[in-house]
């Protein structure tokens, strides 16, 4: 067994010494050609011989019990094989990193849309026909579905510091406002899918999943077999955004049906089912209280929120996470209420916490700057804390001030005018800004690296959910081993390979990359010994090893041998001694139509500091993608639930609006500041994807205010809300 490396102290910046020159570059994805030519086999593309098709059947009551399945109601369908119903079916997908099965409610129904059975047929069409027509009988009881009126409220433990009343009451300026955000769907392009096949007692599952090391345990636990008998394959995943963190209802249903029928079973969710039954982001109600002295120094900072979830689900959106460390105040208060409602369960959706919480705190900061008559950038610069205000930890690396200053400069922030002052025809033009922050994590990860004359092979059960893992791990291995990237092969998405962090929480590239780094470092040390130099003197480049005035081709040193090294890393003392987070600043210009209330983002710049950039191109895609989600959350995204049944009404991508191309301006820039986070991991890198979302929507809202002088506090800022605010202001 490999010894696990613990991140207990800063590591040498080896990647600044290596010579191959591929780390950090805009290398193309090695998997790109396969993807654009349709040859990458996503889960639903794999059809083992004899595979049949399953379609999930939903509950059409909100709360109650399934009493009866009328199998005769679909007996006429040609090719129908079975209606599978099993007490081991999941109520909802597992939460991220659960490592065990979620609730298996048997006949109990907890939300409208809960998958309760699987119709299996020879063809996909027949299975879908059966699933849509199968008659079910339910007992139903009254259920609370609206968080605004639900009575089951669980206050969470508050986080408080200082004397609130003293700080608040005497303050020269106060902002006391409520912001609301609606439910969000992950809206990954690939619908959730699973293909299950049993080989004796061994279950092989191809799944659309983000975190295989955890998913294997969850699936085994759900089905009731040891994890060693489960193999999960997920070589390509078509987007996750949190919705594929935990094992899903489709995977367990496919596994149980395949067992029952003795044939491989494929279950692909209809798009509507993805909305009905995959974890949503909670709606939030956020109460912001900011108090400042006449110089703009924060005296009190309060961020209370209300979130919801299904009864029994532990996940609570960490809404005020970034509010707790972005700024310091004499007194702080963070309280959360969890409301229990019978809507589809809530879980992690792209940047849980920051995606909605930073919108609100950054919009409230803008309101405070307004009250003070102070530049919003200056207000933030005046309130950067020396250390984490709640935990007292020093920051590992925090270039927020640089991001604010550099971003303002490159964007042309000094051209900003008073609200309503800039007009082009019927369009009112405004600028807004917001800070960005997202905590950085290191999650236990293992990887194996093989070096032979043919090149290097990296093996880990890490996933690439479209983020660029294949590219980034290729670069880490190529850089460390002095090989052109074309000589590195990365194998991912197979639980028979060393277990990685998986993709989630923006920790995937750094965590799995660190494991590859450490395994490759062991190989470097062996090459140094073969060459006859000290490891620190070794230099590898283009297949040549140099050190201590010696030089030899790596292949000569190998002499036919295959060097295999495995390494595992996990978080250690640096995670306690220092607080690591990515930071950034968004600047945005919008146009608001004075008659119709339409909002168009005209340009947007994000400036970020998130440690070493491993691949400039994929990092940029992540950051810009995050900013686009931010625009969408400010202007479009709104998952609506029926007020009577709680079912999702916007259950397809025509009704659930994410940003379209026409919503995103050409001038959408992400700039990365040079940074190394020595306390984060041996790569000195930090997470990227979710940092781009954080605050982006806030910058849009603040720009709307600067354009037309009204605040939109219930997002998204759709035209009706903008004109309602304009009319309320007499415009």
């Amino acid at each position, binding site marked *: 067994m490999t010894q696990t490396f613990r991140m207990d102290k800063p590591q040498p910046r080896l990647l600044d010494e290596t010579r191959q020159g591929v780390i950090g570059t805009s290398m193309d994805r090695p998997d790109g050609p396969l993807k654009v030519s349709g040859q990458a086999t996503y889960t639903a593309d794999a059809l083992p011989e004899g595979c049949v098709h399953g379609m999930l059947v*939903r509950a*059409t009551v909100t709360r109650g019990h399934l009493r009866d399945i009328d199998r005769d109601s679909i007996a006429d369908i*040609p090719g129908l094989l079975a209606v599978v119903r099993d007490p081991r079916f999941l109520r909802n997908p597992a939460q991220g990193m659960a490592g065990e099965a979620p609730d298996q409610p048997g006949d109990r129904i907890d939300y409208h849309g809960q998958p309760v059975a699987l119709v299996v047929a020879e063809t996909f*069409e027949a299975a*879908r*026909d059966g699933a*849509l*027509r199968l008659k079910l009988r339910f007992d139903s009881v009254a259920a609370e579905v609206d968080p605004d009126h639900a009575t089951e409220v669980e206050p969470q433990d508050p986080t408080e510091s200082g004397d609130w009343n003293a700080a608040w009451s005497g303050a020269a300026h106060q902002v006391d406002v409520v912001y609301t955000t609606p439910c969000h769907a992950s809206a990954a392009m690939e619908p959730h899918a699973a293909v299950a096949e049993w080989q004796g007692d061994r279950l092989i599952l191809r799944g659309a999943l983000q975190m295989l090391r955890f998913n294997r345990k969850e699936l085994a636990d759900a089905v009731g077999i040891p994890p060693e008998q489960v193999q999960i394959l997920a070589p390509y995943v078509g987007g996750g955004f949190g919705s594929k963190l935990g094992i899903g209802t489709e995977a367990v249903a496919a596994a149980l049906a395949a067992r029952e029928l003795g044939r491989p079973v494929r279950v692909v969710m209809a798009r*509507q089912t993805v909305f009905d039954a995959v974890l949503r982001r909670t709606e939030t109600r956020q109460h912001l209280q900011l108090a400042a002295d006449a110089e703009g120094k924060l005296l009190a900072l309060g961020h209370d929120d209300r979130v919801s979830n299904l009864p029994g689900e532990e996940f609570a959106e960490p809404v005020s996470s970034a509010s707790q460390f972005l700024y310091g105040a004499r007194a702080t208060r963070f309280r959360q209420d969890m409301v229990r409602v019978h809507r589809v369960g809530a879980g992690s959706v792209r940047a849980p916490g920051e995606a909605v919480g930073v919108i609100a705190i950054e919009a409230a900061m803008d309101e405070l700057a307004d009250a003070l008559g102070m530049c919003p950038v200056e207000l933030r610069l005046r309130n950067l804390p020396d250390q984490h205000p709640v935990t007292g930890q020093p920051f590992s690396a925090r270039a927020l001030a640089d991001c604010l200053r550099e971003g303002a400069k490159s964007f042309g922030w000094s051209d900003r005018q008073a609200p309503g002052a800039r007009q082009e*025809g*019927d369009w009112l033009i405004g600028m807004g800004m917001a800070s960005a922050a997202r905590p950085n994590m290191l999650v236990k990860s293992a990887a194996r690296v093989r070096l032979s004359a043919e090149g290097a092979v990296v093996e880990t059960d890490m996933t690439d959910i479209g983020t660029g893992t294949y590219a980034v791990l290729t670069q880490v291995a190529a850089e460390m081993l002095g090989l052109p990237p074309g000589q590195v092969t990365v194998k991912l998405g197979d639980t028979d390979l060393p277990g990685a962090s998986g993709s989630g929480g923006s920790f995937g590239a750094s965590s799995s990359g660190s494991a590859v780094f450490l395994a490759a470092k062991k190989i470097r040390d062996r090459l140094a010994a073969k060459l006859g130099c000290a490891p620190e003197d070794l230099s590898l480049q283009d297949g040549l090893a140099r050190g201590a005035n010696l030089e030899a081709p790596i292949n000569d040193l190998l002499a036919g041998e295959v060097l295999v090294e495995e390494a595992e890393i996990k978080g250690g003392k640096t995670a306690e001694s220092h607080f690591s987070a990515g930071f950034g600043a968004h600047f945005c210009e919008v146009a608001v*139509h004075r*008659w*119709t*209330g*339409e909002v*168009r983002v005209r340009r947007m710049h994000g400036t970020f500091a998130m440690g070493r950039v491993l691949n400039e191109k994929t990092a940029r895609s992540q950051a810009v993608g995050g900013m686009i989600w931010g625009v969408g959350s400010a*202007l*479009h995204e*709104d998952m*609506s*639930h*029926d*007020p*009577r049944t709680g079912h999702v*009404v*916007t*259950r*397809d991508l*025509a*009704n659930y*609006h994410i*940003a*379209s*191309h*026409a*919503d995103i301006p050409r001038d959408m820039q992400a700039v990365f500041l040079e940074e190394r986070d020595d306390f984060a991991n041996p790569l000195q890198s930090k997470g990227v994807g979710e940092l781009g979302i954080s605050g982006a929507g806030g910058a849009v809202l603040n720009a709307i205010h600067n354009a037309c002088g009204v605040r939109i506090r219930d997002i*998204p800022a*759709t*035209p*009706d809300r903008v*004109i*309602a605010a304009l*009319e309320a202001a007499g415009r």
Partner: protein
Amino acid sequence: MRAFDYTRAESLDQAAAALDPAASVIAGGTNLLDLMKLQVMTPERVVDITRLPGLDAIEPEGEGLRLGALVRNSDLAADPRIRARYPLLSRALLSGASGQIRNKATTGGNLLQRTRCPYFYDPAMACSKREPGAGCAAQGGVGRMLAIFGTSDACLAAHPSDMAVALRALDAEVEVRSRDGGLRRLALDELYRLPGDRPDLETTLAADDLITAVILPAPVAGSVQAYRKLRDRASYAFALVSVAAVIRMDQGRIGQAALAFGGVAPRPWRDAGLEAMLHGKTPDEALFREVAQRLTADPAPNPDTEFKRPLLRRTLVAVLREATGLAQPSIGTDATKDAA
């Protein structure tokens, strides 16, 4: 999806003979196939008319144009005669759907597309449009996309087409062929029914009627045309409200005005009274507000659509300002030109 029989019609007679209440015509299929996958529509037979000859041309008809029922939305929008003389139709088409869908969707199919009411789309929800007498789950549900004019207790759904709104403002007629080969022309208000207590009956067409063409009369000479669509994102979304306008100015006064509204009714909505208020008047923002106020005088039938009243008012004022020269025209407002 339910199994169905497929017939490819070789002639209009053959198509008509294959049609009955259990059959559906398929042309572009951009709406029908979605509805069949969800089993909102479950035709036993699908009659493919895409190979019928002679229905895919845009031809002169008197001083106007005859648009074959199978002319693709993208071809229609790009036609130089349409762009020059009926720019509002081109704008309306391009504001709908996506490039891929417009490449498939046809003129006739666009007119006959079904509402996108989410309760109509969900077979688990009560819907009298799907099942007469079943009730309307949209009453008391989430109603952002519902109509504010012409609704009934049985149905709150709005017609989704942009193209039809433009056609309504242009006084287009629909040519319909009955099974015996007879042709008749219907104004859009004669084609579309209001829901009343039978929202399942959306048009006056018989099951074996076929739309063969849309006839555009000569455009109003020297007019300004506008199509303005308000939606929840900049592209690829159905209208919250839309306004189609044809305005001809006459020595500083409004000589002629035609206005049609989308996203607000079970069919493209037109109110001759509004147009009369504008005739002969000098353009004036106060007048436009008065016209808009009259259009939206009654409360919305559903609280979720109350917002459409101010949104429609303000959009109409913005369109009239541009179309009458009170404000600079923006994208979507065009002066008509003679065809090259």
